[in-house]
């Protein structure tokens, strides 16, 4: 049984090409900013244990994403892990752990793009963590008296982390002009509302095991004053904003104004280019069909000559060796 880490392409790790450069860079900036805060806070709270604890747990979450259960026939559900990370480690370390997981998924396994990594980190490692932290804190306090309070809180936290992250992705896609919001938001939302149930159930199962084995470990996810308040508030705000924004965006079939602005930016760049080189017209470029064919031929020639050169080099080497004997 050899399991690949990507059992099926995960619907939330967006590859390159789907988010516009502007959106990608904005979310890179946001992610880097929050990760910086997370690094400082984690260093304060964990000190030296930070590296071994985060590293091994990140490996566990990454590997744990291979744990699956059959839903029906061919489909299976599995785990993202943001909620469990928050409950076990607290929010700031959870951000670092999930960032590591998402980054390695992108860099090593192409699960998610490189330019898009900023957005993926933001959605899953930051928003997912913040929202599950907020939901877990609120629900566990709300249901403090019930014996099932912990599990309801865990389920809610896990489900929200997936659902809200998918809303964020849908909005990013529509801001990029890739998917119209009135399709992306409901589609992403609906799919991930279902996937979130699986995440919720697995998280509850994990909590049940941990509650039975090491109850003391489940304390860190609860809201602590001072240091974490910012994230708590942030998580609640983000969830609310997305909840309000998504239906608004959906009702506007053309997406938001930003798309037009982005196309405008490109138009500006092009006209600037043409201004510098006024009457410049490459023969054939003005005719798109010819230009495409020319590029195709050029491309084939390039690749073929590379292949030929490599093949020649391979053939020559053993001969060279025998000459040197």
């Amino acid at each position, binding site marked *: 049984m050899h399991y690949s880490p990507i059992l099926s392409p995960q619907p939330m790790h967006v590859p390159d090409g789907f988010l516009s450069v502007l959106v990608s860079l904005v979310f890179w900036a946001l992610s880097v900013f929050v990760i910086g805060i997370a690094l400082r806070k984690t260093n304060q709270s964990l000190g030296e244990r930070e*590296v071994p604890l985060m590293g091994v747990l990140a490996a566990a979450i990454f590997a744990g994403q291979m744990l699956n259960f059959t839903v029906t026939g061919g489909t299976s559900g599995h785990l993202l892990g943001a909620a469990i990370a928050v409950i076990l480690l607290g929010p700031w370390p959870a951000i670092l752990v999930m960032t590591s997981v998402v980054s390695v998924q992108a860099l090593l396994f192409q699960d998610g793009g490189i330019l898009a990594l900023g957005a993926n980190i933001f959605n899953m490692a930051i928003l997912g963590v913040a929202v599950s932290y907020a939901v877990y804190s609120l629900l566990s306090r709300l249901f403090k008296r019930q014996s099932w309070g912990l599990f309801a809180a865990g389920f809610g936290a896990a489900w929200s982390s997936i659902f809200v992250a998918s809303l964020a992705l849908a909005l990013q896609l529509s801001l990029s002009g890739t998917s*119209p919001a009135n399709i992306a938001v409901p589609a992403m939302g609906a799919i991930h509302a279902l996937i979130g149930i699986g995440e919720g159930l697995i998280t509850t*199962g994990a909590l049940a095991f941990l509650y039975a084995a090491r109850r003391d470990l489940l304390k860190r996810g609860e809201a602590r004053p001072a240091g974490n308040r910012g994230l708590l508030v942030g998580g609640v705000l983000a969830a609310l904003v997305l909840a309000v924004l998504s239906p608004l965006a959906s009702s506007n079939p053309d997406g938001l104004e930003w798309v037009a602005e982005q196309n405008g930016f*490109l138009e500006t760049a092009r006209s600037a280019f043409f201004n510098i080189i006024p009457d410049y017209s490459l023969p054939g470029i003005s005719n798109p069909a010819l230009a495409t064919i020319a*590029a195709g031929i050029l491309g084939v020639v390039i690749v073929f000559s590379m292949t030929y050169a490599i093949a020649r080099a391979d053939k020559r080497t053993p001969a060279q060796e025998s000459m040197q004997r």
Partner: protein
Amino acid sequence: MQELYAHSHSGIHRLDARVKVIFTLAFVLFLSLAPARAWPAYILFLSLVLSAAVLSRLGIGFVQKRALLALPFALAALPLIFTGPPPTVLLPVFPGLQLSYSPDGLGRFASIALKSWISVQAAILLAATTRFPDLLFALQQLRVPKIFVAIVGLMWRYLFVISEEVLRLLRARASRSASLPGARRAGGSVAWRARVTGGMAGSLFLRSLERSDRVYSAMLSRGYNGELPAAESTPLAPADRRALALGVILLTFLWLLSLLTGG
């Protein structure tokens, strides 16, 4: 679980990891900056990445096999075909049902799918020609915070060990997943199966927490005090610098070409 790195003796493998990281990032960036429907430019970007596949001696097929993974996401952009800007054509699909088809939208969809497919090939080559520790070191030299690099490094170290544990958990579960003769439906309910999987996850995380304690003790025993050794940063070799400069110039040229031919 297998890592992607595939060893071979090629100029690309030998390139400094920093060059490869920066170039791959620039490649994806310039490709993303290209407007829609710049087909000639896309073709040249593609031939650039295919040439790299050939030069790395890993072969085009090697890259293509993995590149298909990115494609299912293209479904997200599919609606563009129907919701794109005018001019649109109304296609009768069923009696009484018409779909509006926008050629402009189709062009945008194809552009997105193509750009995504080409980008993922570049990412595959980066991972396949660079050993992960070298990749991490390059990131560290490129000013990614030391702590973060250390965490990812340790994660990578234990990834395969813990994956083996997961395989054993799955194997143990499979061994107890049997059926009885007769019409009885096997498998329990979906909710039960999900909770059992959760139990496996919980058990895995608990053991990993304890493992991290042991790793911490081992690190302390070898003098670890929270300080991470500074990376001795060597400047880029002239050959690597030239390769990088050449690459970026080439990418800029391709991007300008795309501005001319797209939109």
